[in-house]
């Protein structure tokens, strides 16, 4: 059993007590410690800035050309906080409760409560930095309700909340770069974690411009490297999002928790052809006014406008009269899949459903709809060439977020002492399903308000002495990293990296996506193994290792996805229940809803690497629910 190190005491006092009990590093001594932060998204930029403000020496890394471009920039909808500015009954406890329930009871109570507690500080911090949140005419902050929440607790900056929050964190980071407290390494990719006597002591990186392999030593390492949704090839993630840093740390001893917990977002623009390189999310707010439907008949050829009302199936309204089009993400996604499996999908690929605004436009007028969704409609038109004011949108689910990630304890420390994981790269707060507007909250909570305290507890107990990068552990990691790249370059096969990535994505989507079966997963496991073997004998990577080389960067990342994919399948096979985004067809209620097994599966599955080609070992962290009662979700 894994020890989550959750402090004693009543739920609402744990964090306050813990902050009092952790060891502190004397202000004058902080400058004697170096901390590496990999990643400059919300989680990494906020942590780097805050650690530097406290006095630590920070080295921050990202693979983009600037820290301001991390994938967090793309978040649209908003960020939750239990401010209760709208006086509609929100509270820390309610945000905590909604998050635990939304995660289908597969997250840790104490972490989620802490998240809800610090959520209010995040908004204060961002406003002080000059983040231009939406405001009411009276000059105070505006809120909206998001993702089916019953209170308005979401703060937003038009459809660009992630951008504005990240630019805020980036400005705080830039200030510390100017102060000389953060050394920033853009276009630099972490290739390995270096451990000495089992503790994290540094990383090995590749300078993406010159190809140079380098070592960086520190007293602690923080990974804030984002999610791994790109294992599916097509996702709403940025093209460069990858698992490499987390995966290499996993191979050095960090357990990987709940890898199969993936969120599939119901409202994305469908795939238009084989050339597709990524998918675009359409904000979930569209479901407030749009009605989802497909034709009743298979192989319908008429245009949607020509299909009479009684030949349409508004399947969400039919199956879930109480919630209708606003059922949670996983339920909406799964049902879209079912109708398409029945052959009732629409569009050229038959893998889409309609999201129709005709009734809303008739009811509220075009101007009202335009004021609410104008920018989204424009974006849709830009991408598809169709006008959603005149013809229904076509949407389909797409991979969006990964709840799984590196296992961390209450202090956000992984199973490797001195190695921390924050933001989407850890598994911590969202259980089996994440609520809308909660990822931004978690990234900033971790980086601004949690990690800067908890890392002190570890550093206070370690010596000032820094391991030299001449240490054999660094040399060995450098050599391994080089050997890995050389191996990729020397295969000189016949197929491109993208070919293998696309194939992997297809396997994962078909068998480890929206719905999973034992039989399918077993088949997929073999397919991934075969694909990996073929990759290592037949991939073609152009160029050399000591130059700017995008094919090599991609090949290196895909080589890790090919390993992660198998672990995701193992995890999905192990979990003989359905919960949140993990739907095993064998485990459903008579009405076809996810059927949890709390007796046997109320645990976090944390996988331990056992060497190449050996099955990984499952470790469990039991989830104890002392404050909420477990119920079956129902949206009928």
């Amino acid at each position: 059993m894994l020890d989550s190190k959750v402090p004693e005491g009543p739920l609402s006092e744990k964090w306050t007590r813990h902050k009092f009990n952790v060891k502190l590093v004397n202000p004058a001594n902080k400058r004697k410690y170096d901390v590496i932060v990999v990643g400059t998204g919300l989680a990494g930029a906020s942590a780097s800035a805050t650690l530097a403000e406290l006095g630590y020496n920070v080295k921050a890394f990202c693979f983009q050309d600037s820290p301001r471009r991390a994938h967090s920039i793309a978040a649209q909808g908003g960020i939750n906080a239990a401010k209760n500015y709208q006086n509609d009954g929100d509270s820390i406890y309610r945000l905590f409760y909604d998050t635990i329930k939304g995660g289908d009871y597969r997250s840790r109570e104490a972490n989620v409560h802490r998240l809800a507690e610090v959520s209010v500080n995040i908004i204060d911090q961002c406003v002080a930095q000059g983040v231009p949140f939406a405001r009411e005419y009276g000059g105070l902050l505006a809120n909206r309700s998001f993702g089916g929440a019953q209170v308005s607790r979401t703060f937003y900056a038009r459809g660009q909340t992630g951008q504005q929050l990240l630019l805020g964190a980036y400005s705080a980071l830039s200030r510390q770069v100017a102060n000389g407290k953060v050394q920033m390494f853009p276009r630099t990719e972490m290739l390995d974690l270096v451990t000495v006597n089992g503790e994290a002591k540094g990383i090995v990186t590749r300078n993406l411009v010159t190809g140079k392999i380098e070592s960086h030593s520190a007293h602690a390492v923080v990974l804030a490297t984002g999610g791994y949704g790109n294992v599916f090839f097509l996702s709403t993630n940025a093209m460069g999002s990858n698992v490499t840093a987390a995966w290499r740390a996993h191979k050095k001893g960090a357990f990987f928790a709940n890898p199969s917990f993936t969120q599939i977002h119901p409202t994305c623009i469908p795939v238009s052809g084989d050339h597709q390189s990524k998918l675009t999310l359409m904000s979930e707010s569209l479901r407030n006014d749009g009605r989802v439907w497909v034709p009743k008949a298979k192989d319908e050829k008429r245009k949607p406008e020509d299909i009479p009302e009684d030949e349409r199936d508004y399947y969400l309204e039919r199956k879930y009269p109480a919630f209708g089009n606003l059922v949670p993400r996983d339920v909406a996604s799964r049902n879209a899949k079912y109708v398409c499996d029945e052959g009732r999908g629409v569009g050229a690929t038959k893998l889409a459903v309609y999201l129709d605004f005709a009734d809303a436009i008739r009811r509220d007028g075009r101007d009202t709809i335009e004021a609410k969704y104008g920018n989204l409609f424009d974006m849709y038109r830009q991408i598809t060439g169709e006008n959603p004011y005149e013809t229904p949108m076509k949407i389909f689910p797409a991979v969006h977020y990964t709840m799984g990630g590196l296992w961390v304890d209450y202090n956000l420390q992984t199973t490797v002492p001195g190695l921390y994981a924050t933001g989407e790269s850890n598994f911590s707060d969202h259980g089996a399903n994440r609520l809308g507007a909660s990822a931004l909250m978690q990234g900033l909570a971790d980086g601004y308000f949690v990690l800067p305290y908890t890392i002190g507890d570890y550093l206070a107990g370690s010596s000032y002495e820094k391991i030299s990068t001449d240490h054999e552990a660094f040399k060995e990691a450098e050599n391994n990293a080089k050997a890995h790249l050389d191996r990729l370059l020397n295969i000189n096969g016949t197929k491109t990296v993208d070919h293998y990535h696309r194939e992997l994505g297809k396997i994962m989507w078909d068998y480890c996506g929206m719905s999973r079966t034992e039989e399918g997963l077993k088949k997929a496991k073999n397919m991934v193994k075969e694909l990996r073997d073929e990759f290592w004998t037949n991939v073609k990577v152009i160029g050399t290792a000591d130059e700017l080389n995008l094919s090599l960067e991609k090949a290196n990342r895909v080589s890790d996805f090919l390993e992660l994919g198998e672990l995701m399948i193992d995890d999905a096979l192990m979990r003989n229940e359905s919960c949140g985004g993990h739907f095993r067809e064998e485990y459903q209620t008579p009405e076809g809803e996810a059927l949890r097994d709390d007796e046997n599966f109320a645990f976090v599955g944390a996988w331990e690497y056992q060497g190449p080609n050996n099955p990984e070992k499952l470790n469990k962290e039991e989830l104890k629910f002392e404050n909420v009662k477990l119920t079956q979700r129902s949206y009928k």
Partner: protein
Amino acid sequence: MKLKLKIWRQKNTQDKGNFKAYDVDDISPDMSFLEMIDVLNEQLETKGEEPVHFDHDCREGICGMCSMHINGRPHGPQQGVTTCQLHMRSFSDGDTITIEPWRAQGFPVLRDLMVDRSAFDRIIQAGGYVSVNTGGTPDANEIPIPKSIADEAFNAATCIGCGACVAACKNASASLFVSAKISQLALLPQGQVERKERAEKMIAQMDAEGFGACTNTGACSAECPKGISLSNIARMNREFLTAKASSDNA
């Protein structure tokens, strides 16, 4: 669609570089411009040739990473979109398309279509922030801001730092980018304390990076994918003059 591409190829910063011609066919009008280049690159890689290197990440017009000069215009023929949001239906069968990197002294070419925009980061480091540490900030609603001001600050804050303004300007001036940040913070109450110092320092850094002077041609704003307004430059100039007039180091 069949297309002829003329693409700038340059091995590294030191290399001189030149245009190379490529043919692509089977291009669907639904493809994005970058997906069209993906197709070309898969062809090249399969033949064992070096793919065309270009910057990109989000492919939704928000990260500011993509940066191609297409037929003489930054981000191509369509107004208000980045290269990654441009679709092939904006072109016709048989077209010849010329693709170059941003050209500016402040943005050295790294390889093919990729340039080094770290000068922008250094300009922000010079003062593009409010100096607050984490924690100890007042409640967010203690600072009411009129909606019109908040909206204007937001408009300035939507700059994605892509550098198209510099690429569009005959003087390679970075004024639009710099003024967007100065404006955002000059408009908001949070930015007042450091207002003068910020304008001075950021402008000094912009000059030090080798960007040219602004001669008000307006090409930057016309090509800016986010429609950042020229009025920001006017505000920056005012900020700079007031700062100079009252500055201790004048």
